[in-house]
């Protein structure tokens, strides 16, 4: 499974918790179908009214499907690589 970064417009009134919940539900919905998609996490940048979501899935199309299902207004979906973080 490949990681993808979904860059979506999130207006000020949006609740990050609600967006996360929708993203998770959409990913689960897609997984019940033919394209398994896993929601990983989101990072919200209020100043830019932008939310970055990390999904794992087989392709951009599969992730776009999940993102559309979640109602994310996502102009951009690109392949991404995550570092391992603070653990050694």
């Amino acid at each position, binding site marked *: 499974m490949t990681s993808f970064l979904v*860059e*979506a*417009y*999130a*207006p*000020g*009134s949006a609740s990050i918790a609600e967006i996360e919940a929708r993203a998770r539900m959409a990913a689960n919905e897609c997984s019940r179908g033919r394209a398994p998609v896993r929601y990983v996490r989101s990072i919200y*940048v209020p*100043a*830019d*009214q*932008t*939310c970055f979501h990390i999904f794992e899935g087989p392709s951009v199309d599969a992730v776009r499907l999940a993102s559309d299902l979640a109602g994310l*207004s996502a*102009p*951009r979906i690109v392949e991404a690589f995550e570092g391992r973080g603070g653990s050694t």
Partner: protein
Amino acid sequence: MIGRETEVASVEAFFDATAMLPGALLLEGEPGIGKTTLWKSGVRAARARGFRVIACSPSGSETELSFAALRDLLDDVFGEVESELPAPQRRALAVALLRADPASPRSEQGAIMAAVLGTLRTLARSAPVALAVDDVQWLDAPSAAALTFAVRRLRRERIALLLARRVEREATPPFDLERVFPDRLQLVPLGPLSLGAIHALVHARLGVVLSRPALRRLHELCGGNPFYALELARALGQGVIRLEPGEALPRDLRELVGARLTGLPEQTQTVLALAAAASRPTTPLLEAAWGEETSAALEPAVVAQVVEVEGVEVRFGHPLLAAAAYALVRPRDRRDLHRRLAAVAEGVEERARHLAQASELPDEEVASAIEEGAKVAFRRGAPAAAAELAGQARQLTPGPNEKKARRRGLMQAESLFEAGDTGQAAALLDELIKRSPVGLERAGLLSRQARYRHFGEDAGAGVELLRLALAEAGDDPSLRTEIEEGLAWGLLLMRRDLPAAAAHARSAVRFAKQTGDQAALAEALAAQALTEFVLGHEAAAPMERALELESATLHLRVLRHPSFAYGYLLSCADELHRARDVFLHLHGRAGDHGDESALAPILNHLAFVRLLGGAWDEAERLLDEAYTIALQSGQGPSQASILSKKALLKARRGLLAEARGFAGHALELSAGPAFEVARPQRALARGGETAIWTLGFIELSRGNPAEAHRHLGPLQETLMGAGIEEPGELRFLPDEVESLVALGRLEEARALVTWMDQIARRLGRPSALAGAHRCRGVVAAAGGDMRSALAALEQARTEQERVALPFELGQTLLALGKAQRRAKQRAAARETLQRTAAAFERLGALGCAETARSELGRIGGRTPSGGSLTPTERRVAELVAEGHSNKQVAAALFVTTKTVEGNLSRIYAKLGIHSRTELARRMMREAPTSKL
């Protein structure tokens, strides 16, 4: 709407809060920031909530076209409301909306404004109304003025204003909204969009996806401006720019938009410029102006989304595109475009506007056409637009045509005056007068200048100008009518040389008959009637004739209608009911015509009629209303006159300190801080006459006859010296007689009374006869001849009872009662003085009532007891102590409850008590009381 969720919520909440109406919401921001999109969303929200929406979106090219915006707003609803509007307003609005041709030569600006207000109110009766205006900064001036007038007068109507305005620097909200709706004006500034919103926008509209660096660069360049962002994204998509570091990019939005247009074929650019120059571009108009088919030329612009063509209407995607299309063309070519549009323009005014922009050099044919446009604009009720066009016509008049240039200058001045810009009108006239040779034309300019600069402010200077004009006017009938009439009014206003005023008025009538102008004749006859009237001459014939011709004057300002003079004559001649009817009718007429300048003077006269008739509460209310209007419209002499009447009313009520305050203020307004009692002329010319009378009355009431005479003596000398013999102009004379009597100057008093008597007998007028008899009685009593005094005062009573002037009746009865007491006719005196006190109390003249009660108390040597209570107070105290309510006491004594309350306050204060119980205890200690 991407990026405007908060603003959309604000707009929707505004339309949800109908309890807060009337109110306004103003969207503001720089060009391209998204105001129109949000405004349109607001319009949809209003409709969805059941609002009746009337909307307009003026463009930059319509700013100079009179009432263009009003037509967009009201044309569709005119049929619905026209039957609810008074006829003058209906006609005037129809002309403004180009549904009818102007029928009168004067500007109907006032009637149009009143019609707009009436229309909004009518619509709001059946559903809340949303008045939506996009790009408010481009409203044409006459429409803006009419809307401002209407908005200022909204009170509880369910009307919501949704406005959008381009703001490039700080500016006050339109329509005087900050003052009119201090708590109900919402300002919604539209700021830049966020990075995320910009990205969502370009993706949604153009399908463009940007890398993070490119997005950052684009956002930085456009500053969050959505229109700019879309233009950049479009240019990016076309490969015109790449948004790479170090790349040379367009400096600003204008350059970017311009670059978009320069990429179009030359023919397309030219047709776009033509469309931008036209106020309402349509394909037939463009083809007629261009001379050939335009669809093919417009096609590339349609594909590039610069314009869209809906049916025959051609609309630019954004005003910035129109501005850019116009700016791309060279000035020489722009003039050619305007020339083509002038050739096919339908309206005279529109043609004039295009010609003005097409012409660089003076050209008589062009100047003449623009002058025609000015005339049409004036007659349609757009004097500001007419002034602008007349000014352009003047500038384009070729050098040798000096006379035509001056004529156009005069038209410009007249239009400026009509539009309310008196200062500029007067300044322009000064310039024209300097350039005019001595003769007929200059006489006309001088006459106009007298009216603009001086009447209302300095009648003396106005009269001097008119005398100069008269010397140069020759025998031209129109001009002589105007000048002679002006002199008649001027001298009348100044209260100077009234015989000359009457001679000028008669001359005006002679010349007016030669012109065949019925309106001018009606005005001249009214001037003749008034001047003859104040001289004590017969005035019925000219007044009747003037009234017969009144219908010819209805297009003039209401104060110039003969009825106004007639109302005044009636009020002097004891015909108070008829005077009231006339002024009420004129008030309605002024409202129907939207003639605000007439309201304060009419209400002032109406108030005085009610004051004389004893309806003092109503008079006070009318004076307050008149003063508010006069203050708002800056009518100085009207303010002074109104305050003078207020002073008199307060003085008659016995509120002497307040009266003095109002009189002082009135004199300051009319004569400035340097008012001299011995030289009252300036005050007389500017509404201060009644203030001087009031100050004299106050001094007399306070027992200061010397001070009273100091005010009233010069007043009498000035007015009688001017030739005035109309008692209605000299109502203060009885007070002057009393002052002279109190000063022991009986010979002077007798001479004045003889004069008053002669006038009164000649006129046969009851109030004048009553005044003369009363004064004769007072003088006789002072001389010790009680028999003659009583006879004269009885005659005064008889005459006074024939007319409804309750205060004067009270004064007559008081004088009679005093004389009867002095003549030891105790029973008669008691009855007269009781009647007097009751009459004054009914009126609310508490000071005079107190005087009557004091006189009553002196009959039979009775002295007040119970802590110096007056007889009235004693009676009230007795009845209250017996347990009667204030209402019962009032009924028993034939006075008002208010009077009883006033008496009780004084009783408590004098006896040092605080309750009815205490009063009852106190009275029980004294003599037994009477029963109700």
